[in-house]
């Protein structure tokens, strides 16, 4: 749209002020968090000079190590499961003729986006408690399944977008050239879909890595992920070690989201 002299939102009084406040509110706390992760002292509010010591201490902290490993295992498994399910769901909602209730299926896939997380968390807590009583199993799979479930919509969105943007003629051409459905999927659909699949998996990974509420409710004793470990630490002494861990998490998330963005912008061939 052409810029109009009569109305330019940037010239409205207060615009610059409000915009700036939003930026400050959003980014100042994060900047401070990052800055204080390099604090030489033990305070998270008083600057005493630059040091890497909190990164070193976090790195050497066995609890942090365990929580990190657990977080990575859960995020990896959950994003694999969620992405696989999302690919199948996206195929079912874009590659079949509209069936009765396909709208409902779409809504159900996206259910985690609509139901309050705390409700899901409580529901899962109760449900898994029943299973735990019945089977006695207290392992990691509860967390992996729970994470997979709420990651599916995030993996589903980019995959579905990619599928919808794809030329249906390509799959028909492959079938015309004697390709059976599964081979057409592997040789034509999947290679085209790949950027969407990667993007979906990365998004799911970040979402899983970041989760507190559901993890806190579902985890068994000793199953701390990085976010729940940090939450636990906050109840005791707060040192810049928390800042250091947060900064690393932030760096990983930003890297993944940037990669996701580049992938989803990648030329739709």
């Amino acid at each position, binding site marked *: 749209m052409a810029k109009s002299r009569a109305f330019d939102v940037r010239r409205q009084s207060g615009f610059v002020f409000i915009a700036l406040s939003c930026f400050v509110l959003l980014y100042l706390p994060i900047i401070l968090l990052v800055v204080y992760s390099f604090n030489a002292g033990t305070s998270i509010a008083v600057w005493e000079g630059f040091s890497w010591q909190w990164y070193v201490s976090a790195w050497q902290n066995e609890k942090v190590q365990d929580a990190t490993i657990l977080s990575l295992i859960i995020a990896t498994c959950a994003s694999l499961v969620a992405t696989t399910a999302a690919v199948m769901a996206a195929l079912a909602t874009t590659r079949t003729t509209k069936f009765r209730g396909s709208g409902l299926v779409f809504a159900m896939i996206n259910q985690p986006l609509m139901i309050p997380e705390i409700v899901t968390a409580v529901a899962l807590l109760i449900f898994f408690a029943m299973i735990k009583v019945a089977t006695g199993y207290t392992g990691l799979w509860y967390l992996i399944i729970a994470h997979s479930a709420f990651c599916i919509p995030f993996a589903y969105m980019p995959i579905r977008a990619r599928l919808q943007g794809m*030329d249906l*003629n*390509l799959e*028909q*051409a*492959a*079938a*015309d*050239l*004697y*390709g*059976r459905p599964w*081979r057409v999927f592997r*040789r*034509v659909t999947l*290679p*085209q879909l790949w950027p969407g699949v990667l993007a979906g998996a990365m998004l799911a990974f970040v979402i899983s890595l970041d989760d507190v509420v559901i993890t806190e409710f579902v985890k068994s004793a000793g199953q701390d992920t990085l976010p729940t470990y940090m939450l636990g630490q906050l109840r005791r002494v707060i040192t810049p070690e928390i800042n250091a861990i947060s900064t690393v998490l932030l760096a990983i998330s930003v890297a993944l989201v940037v990669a996701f963005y580049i992938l989803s912008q990648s030329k739709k*061939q």
Partner: protein
Amino acid sequence: MIEISGLTKTFGSGDSAFTALKDVNVTIAENEFFTLLGPSGCGKTTLLRSIAGFVDPTSGSLTINGDDILSKAPYDRPVNTVFQNYALFPHLTVAENIGFGLEMQDRPKAEVQSVVKEMLELVQMAPMADRMTSQISGGQQQRVALARALAPKPKVLLLDEPLSALDFKLRKEMQIELKRLQHETGITFVFVTHDQEEALTMSDRIAVMNGGRILQIGGPREIYDHPAERFVADFIGDTNFVSADLKSVEGDAAEVHLPSGQAIEARSVAGGPTSGAVTIAVRPEHATLTAPGALLDGTLKNIVYFGTDTHYHIETEARSTFVIRQQNQPDSAEDHKVGEPVGISFNPGVAQVLRD
């Protein structure tokens, strides 16, 4: 041999139902260059996709060499398609695209390689074998699409307006190229176009379609010289329509009385009227300009010089326009004048009685 009988396709149901194919009957012979010709939306693509297996006909039967193929999935039908937008695989090279059908059939690697090489040479794309399909021009993509469809040596090749995206010069070249390929491979071609000139120059036989029906099937000359229906006469080339009175029909010959009262022998049409008021069609170049007192008389309204020929626009006594096209001779002077009374004449058997 493809035998299609009673093929009907209705899309949707209830109020939104739309019948795109209505009782289509056609037999296409082995090694034939068969063209489906008709305006946009007449059902050509729907018919082609029914043969390929992407449209499921509502009723009717479709066999290839006696095998019922309607019950088969697209990947089990011995046909290949050249898609209108080519549908080349963007993540594969030119050579991989061409080899795709053979790969899906699990042919041995060595065979795939040698067929791909042969196809690359057939369509003169050998130097581009390792390019991605986005790195070649539209005309080259067209050739790759053709090679890809020919590589598995199908019994039937279906081509959906394969030349419509090419510019004029390239289109003319590819028309000749396609004819050559059809001749060399001996494969049956079912070719879809809305371009009547393309249909006339390339086909062994043409089926003219409109509104989901096949109106007429015949060789290019027959379709052009003896259109069976007004739509066919109008869609292919230019035609004069004259109302006449049909007196009698004997085999191919029909006796008609023109508005001037003159009688002439016309050609009858199978399944057409045997008497009463009819319309006859006369091609502009099949009539000659004469002195008044001919089959039809009128006034010369306009003379248009076209280089190769001259068009005379005549207003007949029945107040309709009749166009005569006469080939020009070198250094001849125009000896007619606008406004003068003239006659229109044509030979017996030239006028065609139309079905409706």
